[in-house]
């Protein structure tokens, strides 16, 4: 069965070669010629004020945290879903308990305002 992964590896190799080749060809054919103005980041013609590497909205972190919880949930649901029709009701009940626990968490996050973007 392991041999069925061989084509994926070949395709991955071809893709990597292709990606590196594209970047390298472009770089070699017409490398950047620096001028003072070209070196400034393009911010719609305005001279940039301050650095980009500053603090930014914490909401993006909140989304990332939420995502991990619910993506792991999907990962746990996958094997059960594949075998569900053979397993029957008892594992279904177990999965429901798992889902309810996570749903309580979702409601808590919702009430706490973790999903608000105003």
């Amino acid at each position: 069965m392991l041999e069925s992964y061989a084509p994926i590896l070949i395709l991955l190799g071809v893709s990597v070669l292709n990606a590196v080749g594209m970047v390298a060809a472009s770089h070699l054919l017409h490398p950047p010629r620096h001028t003072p103005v070209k070196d400034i980041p393009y911010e719609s013609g305005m001279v940039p004020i301050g650095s980009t590497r500053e603090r930014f909205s914490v909401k993006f972190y909140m989304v990332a945290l939420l995502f991990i919880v619910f993506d792991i949930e999907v990962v746990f649901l996958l094997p059960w879903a594949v075998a569900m029709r053979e397993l029957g009701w008892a594992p279904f009940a177990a999965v429901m308990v798992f889902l309810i626990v996570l749903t309580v968490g979702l409601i808590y996050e919702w009430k706490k305002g973790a999903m608000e973007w105003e």
Partner: protein
Amino acid sequence: MHEVGALSSTAFLVSSALKVVVAFTLVLVTVAYLTLLERKVCAWMQDRLGPNRVGPKGLFQPLADGLKNILKEETLPAEVSKLFFFLAPMLSIIPALVTFAVIPVAAPLPTPWGLVDMIVADAPIGILLILALSSLGVYGIVMAGWASNNKYAFLGGMRASAQMVSYEVSLGLSLIPVFMLVGNVTLTQVVWTQQEALGLWFALPLGLSFLFFVISAFAETNRLPFDLPESEAELAAGFHTEYSAMKFSMFFITEYAHVLTTSALMATLFLGGWDIPFTNWDDMRVVAPGVVEGAAPSVLKTLATFAAFAVKTFFFVFLYIWVRWTVPRFRYDQVMHLGWKVMLPIALGYVTLMAVSILVLDAIGLEFGFVYGLILTAVNAVATVIFLWVIDRDRVISGAAARRAPRRAPTRPALVLEGEPAFGVPATEPAFVPARSE
């Protein structure tokens, strides 16, 4: 059962290498022509001509674009993080080109050397590979946004990552009912269940899943109405503002490769893949190397099923383009609202509903087949109506701000002719009256 004969291991390697080369070339050429198709369809919708100068009817436009992009000067502003700046386009294009590997494109082809599957790699993990690889695309975008040292690019990268991870949850959840019905994760098995075991395309018995998958796929590919990461009016070009020449082209190819792959995936998961509807002439599956169950394989069947697959895929590609030139962009809070407060809870409820329906149908001993599918279709029709009622735009998608604020009185009095009853003029004085200069 039809015995065709398995490939020898040398023949397997040769056929694999051939399939990789053909599939890779086909994807890249199709992607190049998708850019032309997009511009042509856009021109058609806006009553213009579109590109028509390079070659007959503009057919060589993608070649000219490619040549231009590879010869252009690449920009490299002073304070970019060079390593990540160069790595980002590579990291986005590699997964986009590999995901096509596990999608079956036609019925298996009999050759003098044995039976050849029309799929680059029939790996047992099937669609899980696509889920895993497509989430890797986020890294390229975040890296591009971060490395550019440009505020637009940075905001675009942040928005893209938050949006893509949000909709990945609904994407995964919308696939759970498919796995319940199929009992496997390989896409060849998904096609077989739709054409023979159930006899119904999943767009019917799993209608709401289909809707969820389409919405999430649009959000995952960052296409309108979800193209917040590169909304031109706010962020210049979003995460690829600082990229030019071939590196920009790579982000462009990535976007269209994702459009092509998700279209193929939608066709395979919900519209029967390469199945030709209303006939059993092409219903077959490989049960062991070289052994086929169902109809006998032939070259004609492979070609016909490939045509069916292409038609279905291009239906979705056209849907992408159609939506892009029709629907306006969401606001960012609306995107997050839809993802977390609408799609996620409803998808969870829907997974439970489908699990209960399938288990009940099994418990009463109904045979897995056409009637089974019709009952599930009825359940889904009800669920879809409820979903559409919940998603009704005046209550949910308009967002919190619209509901809280009282309805504003018209600031300008309506034009009233002498002697006519006044319509539209508020009975009481509006709350906000501009100060008059005395």
